[in-house]
């Protein structure tokens, strides 16, 4: 019943958006046809021109002196809600209590980039986060060198982020390179027709250490086969480990576009090692995610959703859905509306997070969220977090579902330079 209500709400929101857009856009018949026709009354005559050097257009991308850019983002805010009373060991002691978690952070980020010529590029990004909860820990996010060999082999060496998954909500293990930001990487891509083959080598930072062996490195291979409006991506990874029990993972992704809606399905398989039996089980299906993504510029609406089956649960009952809808500048106002609804079918629990954000001053944005959890005591989403928004509050078995709400407040100041 609640699910139906939410679906109705989403549809109503979309319909409202469409209605509002229609009201803004309704054009009288004829439009500006007459003013268009006036362009032909006395046009400049057709001209003749010489062919220019096409490579000049690529200069901004092929040769670039050292440039340094930066940005900073500062957060301040907190979460207010209720939580079951627990002792130091996390055991429920009866009743509930209010919980507030204030916090703030200031994160400057510096990026440098240089392209001496069209075959080579250096790029690096470093962040210097000051947070109320952590010690000051500057970090190099990326530092890599691109090298192009004969315009046919593309190499990227150094520390860089690699993303192989296609999901937006449920990670589910499809991003086989999720640890890439911890390692030194080398990526080699060879375009083949409209697709390509990519090889990855991820070595832990201890590569210079005398204890390093290549068993500790992670190897990945991905092939990308587009066909018409569809694309098949197959990837496999052998993860580094100290011994021979190296985990294997593989994914198969199918993407397509239908009537402007992106559709995808991703299946994940992984090997398992059973130490008691010294047995390695070769990749078996561990998860399936399917989803859609659709956005429209006017009105600026975005819908996306995913359906995830956790195939490690042999009963196949661990199934989840999450749907997100966003409407920027709703009704032509400065408010951005968003709603995320996540549901676990195994016990019909879930989290609903409606939110509003708006710019209150130049560079300053205010976000307000009202997370609410539903489900029977001890159910999945009364214990676990939403896949993309950490609320950490309203985790309570004590209250009724309509009392399990919290308040998220966040002020964000950001600017680039």
């Amino acid at each position, binding site marked *: 019943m609640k699910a139906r209500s939410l679906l109705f709400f989403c549809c109503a929101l979309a319909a409202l958006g469409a209605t509002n857009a229609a009201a803004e856009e309704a054009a009288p018949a004829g439009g500006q046809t007459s003013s268009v026709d006036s362009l032909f009354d006395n046009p400049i005559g057709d*001209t*003749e021109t010489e062919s220019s050097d096409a490579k000049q*257009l*690529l200069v*901004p991308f092929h040769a670039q002196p050292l440039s340094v850019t930066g940005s900073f983002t500062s957060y301040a805010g907190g979460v207010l809600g209720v939580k079951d009373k627990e002792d130091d060991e996390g055991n429920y002691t009866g009743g509930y209590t209010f919980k507030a978690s204030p916090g703030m952070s200031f994160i400057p980020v510096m990026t440098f980039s240089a392209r001496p010529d069209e075959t080579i590029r250096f790029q690096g990004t470093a962040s210097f986060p000051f947070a109320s909860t952590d010690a000051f820990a500057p970090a190099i996010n990326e530092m890599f060198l691109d090298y192009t060999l004969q315009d046919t082999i593309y190499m990227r060496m150094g520390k860089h982020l690699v993303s192989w998954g296609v999901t937006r909500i449920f990670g589910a293990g499809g991003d086989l390179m999720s640890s890439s930001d911890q390692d030194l990487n080398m990526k080699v891509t060879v375009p083949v027709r409209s697709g390509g083959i990519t090889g990855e080598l991820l070595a832990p930072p201890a590569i210079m250490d005398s204890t390093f062996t290549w068993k500790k490195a992670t190897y990945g291979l991905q092939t990308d086969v*587009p066909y018409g*409006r569809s*694309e098949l991506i197959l990837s496999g990874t052998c993860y580094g480990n100290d011994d021979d029990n190296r985990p294997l993972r593989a994914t198969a992704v199918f993407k397509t576009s239908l009537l402007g809606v992106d559709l995808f399905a991703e299946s994940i398989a992984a090997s398992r090692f059973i130490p008691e039996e010294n047995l390695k089980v070769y990749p078996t299906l561990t998860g399936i995610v399917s989803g859609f993504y659709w956005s429209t510029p006017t009105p600026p609406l975005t819908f996306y959703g995913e359906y995830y089956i956790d195939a490690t649960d042999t009963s196949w009952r661990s199934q989840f859905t999450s749907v997100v809808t966003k409407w920027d500048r709703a009704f032509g106002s400065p408010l951005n509306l968003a709603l995320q609804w996540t549901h676990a079918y195994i016990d019909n629990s879930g989290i609903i997070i409606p939110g509003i954000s708006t710019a209150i001053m130049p560079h300053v944005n205010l976000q307000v969220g009202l997370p609410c959890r539903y489900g029977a005591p001890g159910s999945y989403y009364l214990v676990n977090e939403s896949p993309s928004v950490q609320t950490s509050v309203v985790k309570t078995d004590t209250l009724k579902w309509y009392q399990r709400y919290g308040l998220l407040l966040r002020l964000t100041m950001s600017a680039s330079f």
Partner: protein
Amino acid sequence: MKRVGISIALAAFALGCAFAEPDFKAMLKSVDSLVSFLDTDFSAEYKIEQFKPGQGTSVTNAAIFRRDKDAKYLILILDPPADKGKGYLKIGQSMWIYDPESRRFDFTSSKERFQNSNARNSDFTRSTYASDYDIVSGKEEQLGKFDCWVLDLKANNDEVTFPRCKIWVSEDNLVRKTEDYSLSGQLMRTRAIPTYQKIGERYVPVMLLIVDNLRGKTIGGKFQNETTKISITKPSLSKLPDSIYTQAYLEKVSK
């Protein structure tokens, strides 16, 4: 008497020729060939000025690289700085948009709007009127200083962005104006190309104005349509490396 008869017959023949409809299919083929680059690559810089009533004008500069014979193109955003390195890659029927921030390639469609403007991604590909449309009717009409044939066209497949359109073709077989319609006959947008630039044996618009006939806003009691003005400069017929039309290249040149 015999001479008078011959003269009348010749005059009638000449008059018939003068009013005979041209071969419209051949005209469409000529229209396509004059603005398509099947024997060379084509590249240029496009300045796209998007006017939204009440919101002002935003400008996007892009470098466009086309290889029409293989149905490929690459569009790289040069400006604004926030979008620099963002790119569109089309290979055959597949089309991707690359976001350098998320480092993701996402599918997009030729029918989609380009950078939230009134231009569609299909506006940057080769012209395919002759193969994608059937001619419903044709008539002569004056468009400003141009003597034009107005052809009413209906799509023969559902791959095209607009199922119906009307095109104004001047005597030199160049399209000067188009009206694009939905299947129900709703006028969606109007395009005007008052001036072309000749490069080699082919033609490229100097300026293309697109009026969105559905979108706009009433300002001061008067309805104003959204418009997009595209100015094309630095056209080139230079051969480009094959590697330009690949995802790897797009990833390499992005920020």
